[in-house]
């Protein structure tokens, strides 16, 4: 089922959580809402679920206005950040809950419920824990119970609020892959909220980048990574180095091997990712001094201090390239962005 939202706005007191958002979620896609905390992503998710009401704007499910529809009638599966498992019920009872509260006419028989719950528990590999209580489970297991519980009512949309943030790093990684596989099997429209760019880049079909209640960019992981629409997007998707060029200095872009933008004399900001910097000792680019170099596996992580300004630059390059440069602490190294992002204007 597709979801579209139009001009959605929501304020909490003086804080604007959503500032007139419009967006489409195509059917069957796995979309990540990515942004820093306080950007409105969880509010958007809760409005889609019906747990919050927007101040203005509409939510459409499959082309029908669902803004006024009660949460219990929206047919969404929701996984909470801290799972919100019913603490006084066993795993089995938790998963069966959505089926047992159905009106008598629609309620499946006891045997049907049992079959369905065990099928779901098998799907999440937890059928052997059916009689346990949530407090007896690990974080990863609770997460999977929460997912099975949400899937029991056959939702047309699955919403996940920071689904992996309460888990430790290793479990998080496993569950990410598993969620992706599960989505490929079930093909239910899924939206998940995250502040972790790696998670979004790895799992999602599409990423919606949000900032201060607005959308910064929408695109596939490759699109947002390769063609960031704003300095915010660039900054949010991993570490970047930033070079400020004041008015008049923009000409220096030529010296960096960057195609100079139209208004050559205006101020500009150049961004470059650590692995998109070329290091040389032949005098091309920005002069720097080698501060520190660490060899981490196949990579060298290099910290450089600019000679002309008080700024540190981080670069990563293949181990062999670094060793071939034959430089030590204190050596002068020149840096040139191989794939720079130029944004015009002051103080972006």
């Amino acid at each position: 089922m597709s979801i579209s939202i139009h001009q959605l706005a929501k304020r909490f007191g003086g804080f604007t959580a959503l500032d007139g958002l419009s967006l489409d979620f195509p059917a069957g896609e796995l979309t990540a809402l990515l942004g820093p905390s306080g950007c409105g992503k969880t509010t958007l998710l809760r409005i889609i679920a019906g747990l919050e009401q927007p101040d203005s704007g509409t939510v459409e499910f499959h082309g029908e206005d669902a803004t006024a529809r009660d949460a219990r009638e929206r047919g969404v599966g929701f996984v909470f950040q801290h799972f919100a498992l019913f603490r006084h019920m066993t795993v089995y009872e938790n998963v069966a809950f959505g089926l047992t509260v159905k009106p008598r006419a629609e309620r499946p028989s006891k045997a049907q419920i049992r079959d369905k719950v065990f099928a779901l528990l098998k799907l999440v590999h937890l059928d052997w824990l059916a009689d346990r209580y949530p407090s007896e489970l690990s974080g990863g297991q609770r997460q999977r119970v929460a997912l099975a519980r949400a899937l029991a009512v056959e939702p047309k949309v699955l919403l996940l609020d920071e689904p992996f943030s309460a888990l430790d790093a290793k479990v998080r990684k496993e569950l990410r892959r598993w969620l992706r596989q599960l989505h490929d099997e079930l093909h239910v429209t899924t939206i998940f909220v995250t502040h972790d760019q790696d998670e979004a880049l790895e799992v999602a079909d599409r990423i919606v980048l949000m900032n201060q209640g607005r959308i910064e960019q929408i695109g596939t992981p490759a699109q947002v990574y390769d063609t960031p629409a704003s300095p915010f997007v660039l900054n949010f998707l991993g570490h970047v180095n930033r070079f400020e060029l004041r008015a008049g200095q923009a000409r220096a872009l030529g010296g960096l091997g960057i195609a100079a933008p139209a208004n050559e004399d205006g101020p500009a900001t150049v961004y470059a990712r650590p692995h998109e910097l070329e290091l040389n000792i032949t005098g091309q680019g920005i002069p720097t001094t080698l501060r520190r170099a660490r060899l981490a596996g196949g990579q060298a992580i290099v910290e450089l201090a600019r000679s002309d300004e008080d700024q540190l630059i981080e670069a990563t390059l293949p181990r062999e390239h670094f060793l071939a440069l034959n430089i030590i602490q204190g050596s002068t190294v020149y840096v040139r962005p191989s794939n720079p992002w130029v944004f015009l204007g002051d103080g972006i």
Partner: protein
Amino acid sequence: MAQSAVLRVSLYDKPKASGRWLRVGLIALAVLGLGLFLVLPLVAVFASALQAGFGPYFAAIIEPEAWAALRLSLTAAAIAVPLNLVFGLAAAWAVTRYEFRGKQLLVTLIDLPFAVSPVISGLIYVLLFGAQGWLGPWLAEHDWQVIFAVPGIVLATLFVTVPFVARELIPLMQAQGADEEEAARLLGAGGWQILWRITLPKIRWGLAYGVILSNARAMGEFGAVSVVSGHIRGLTNTLPLHVEILYNEYNSVAAFACASLLAILALFTLGLKELAAYKLRTSRAGDES
């Protein structure tokens, strides 16, 4: 170096020794205080009640006026406690689940009976519902008697027991949050299903604790009830009032016999309260693991 070692020894040893004395002293003080102010009177109640043997003791208890007083005390509690349960639950729900104007005022008002002397609250009811009170003439017209009758006693009992359930539930429900209720709603559960299957099981021991405390207060209340009761024997005397009357008549065996009934009710309540507190603690500990 040697000096610092000496210093260290003296620094660490002294508090240890004085710490032990402090500990022993405080424990002794607490035990002494408890014994003097709680255990001794309790023993005295039973000793005085039984000073003439079991015969007069039981005679005093099965005497019709004592029975009527016990019945009235239980009736007042049986009406006030369930009403408190519903009110406390509703108030705690409203305070912890919704944002509204005057929320802080509501929380303060819930605590009012703790701050106001019970006698004053009784007087307020006399002022409102008494023969010379604001609503007195209207009540007389409809032939309803509130003051010096059972309704007044129930009202006074309600007033003094209002805070217990809500006070117990508000922090508990705040700590538990609304995630589970939201999850249930998204799974298709209706309001009553959420209340019966999610919220009540979550808060049951906190609720039990509040109910027990409010029951104890309801049966033991003296001041507020004394003002509105009128002390009509066999009609508007609760057990605590009955004890006072007997005592004033120098019938100390009967007075202490009835007092011992109250003491037994109190001990029983204390046991139940501890059980509820224990269950509350263990159910909370279960959530955290």
